[in-house]
Structure formats: structure tokens, C-alpha cells
């Protein structure tokens, strides 16, 4: 069996971009690429959970961070594993400034649209990674 693509959103709860990333990853893993993509709790890496550590060690990893602090990327790297790709919600938002989320957890129509665009970007990234083999 081929490698899975593990897509990890940050756990951001202070700003809406954390929720945008989370929703985009759910769209990708549950609708767009359920066969190829999976996710796990980022916090499991913080407690050295063997199953979560093996998942990121043995598969391809993409992180999705809400802000420049890049918590998801740094959490993966703290396990000794470099990420294969790192995306940031803020970078997508800079190209779609009209899509400002309404609230931190209640994204509203514009926030969900932003999450959809991010999910499509992630889908393209998955294609690129899979083509490279």
C-alpha cells in the first residue's frame, strides 16, 4: 500500500484563520481526497503518542497553519521530521481579502468560501506531491 498524505491543521483558537484551516482539512480529507488524505490531532505529537508519531514519520506530511507562528509545522518538526509542504491560511487570505471570516468559530459564508479555496489549493498540492511519487 502507498503512502498516505497526512494533513495537519494548527489548533488555533484565538483567531478565525485556525478554524478556516481546520475546515479546509476536513473538506480535503472527507470530501475531496478521502482515499489519499488523513489527519490526526496535532496535540498527540506533543505527548509523543507512538501511533501519531509513526503516522507522520512513515507518510507524507502537509501542515496548514493559521498564522505566522506556524505551530503545526513546528510541532511536526519537533519530532525530528521535516514537513513535505507547509501552507498558511494568511497567504490565501492575502489573495482573497474580500473573504473575511465573520467570527472565530462561526466562519459565515465568506469564511467557508475561504476554506473551500484553501481546500482546493491543498488538493492541487496533493496532486503535485503524488506526481513526484
Amino acid at each position, binding site marked *: 500500500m502507498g503512502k498516505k498524505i497526512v494533513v*495537519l*491543521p*494548527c*489548533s*488555533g*483558537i*484565538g483567531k478565525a484563520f*485556525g478554524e478556516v484551516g*481546520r*475546515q479546509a*482539512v*476536513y473538506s480535503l480529507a*472527507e470530501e475531496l481526497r478521502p482515499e489519499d488524505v488523513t*489527519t*490526526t*490531532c*496535532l*496535540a*498527540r505529537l*506533543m*505527548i509523543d*503518542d507512538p501511533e501519531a508519531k509513526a503516522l507522520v514519520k512513515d507518510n507524507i506530511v502537509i501542515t496548514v497553519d493559521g498564522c505566522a*507562528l*506556524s*505551530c*503545526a509545522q*513546528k*510541532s511536526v518538526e*519537533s519530532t525530528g521530521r521535516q514537513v513535505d509542504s507547509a501552507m498558511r491560511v494568511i497567504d490565501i487570505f492575502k489573495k482573497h481579502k474580500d473573504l473575511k471570516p465573520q467570527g*472565530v*468559530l462561526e466562519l459565515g459564508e465568506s469564511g467557508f468560501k475561504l476554506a473551500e479555496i484553501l481546500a482546493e489549493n491543498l488538493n492541487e498540492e496533493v496532486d503535485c506531491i503524488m506526481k513526484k511519487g
Partner: protein
Amino acid sequence: MLVEIKKPKKVGIIPCNGEEICEGTLTRFASRKVLDELRPHETVTICLPLFIAGGQEERGFAKNFPTITVDGCSKRCSQISTEKLSSRPYHSIVVSELLREHNIKPPPSRRTITEKDQAAVDLIAGEIANKVDEILGNNQGG
């Protein structure tokens, strides 16, 4: 000799935010409810992975604030990480256990919560708010 014991003014709430499970989504919604509605002036929050990604300020968070960790499952990632990287939390809540005690089912989806799941959010948020009051020595009720 009299020693003045200063009461803390704020409590830090640290949800696990577990992305993989429905109970993780509940930790987010319940923590935000406490921050935004129930105890807005008495609570702050921090993204758990900031203990790794952030600097000394974040790592010293639990030394400056009493904290309540809110975990979705019995792995207790938030509690263990907070203990390991900052300081021991004052209280630790495990959502799966709390729901079981009250015979409430977790939401069917991890993506969001519906009107039906509001009882679970209210229960967890109420539990957090009660613990905040205990720590601060308040008796606000509700």
C-alpha cells in the same frame, strides 16, 4: 508576620482542540463559550502547540496563570503537554468522561456542532466556568 496572598485575576483555559475527534471540536466550542460569553473578563486562552512553537512567554504561561486543561479524550494531550512544557494545571477536564457521566452523546461530526449538540457544549462550558469560579473564589453562578 502577616503574608499577603494575592488571588489570581485570570484563569487560562487550554483546550486540546483535537482535530481528529468530535470531542476535540467540543473542547473548542466550549472554551470559546466561556471566553466570549460566560467569563470573558476572567479567562484567557492559548493555542496548545504554542508551548512548542512559541517562546518563553508561552512556556511561562501556566506559571503566571492558573490553568484549566480541557481534553477531548483520555489521552489527555492538553494536560500532559501543559505539565511537561509549562506547569501543572489547577484542573483538568476530560470531555469524553464528562459526557458519559451525564449520558450525553458526542456530536456525530467533527466538522461543526448542531443545535442538538448545544447541550454538550453548555455542559462542558458550565463545568469550566464553575472551575474558574472555584479558582478565583467567586460565586457567580451559571
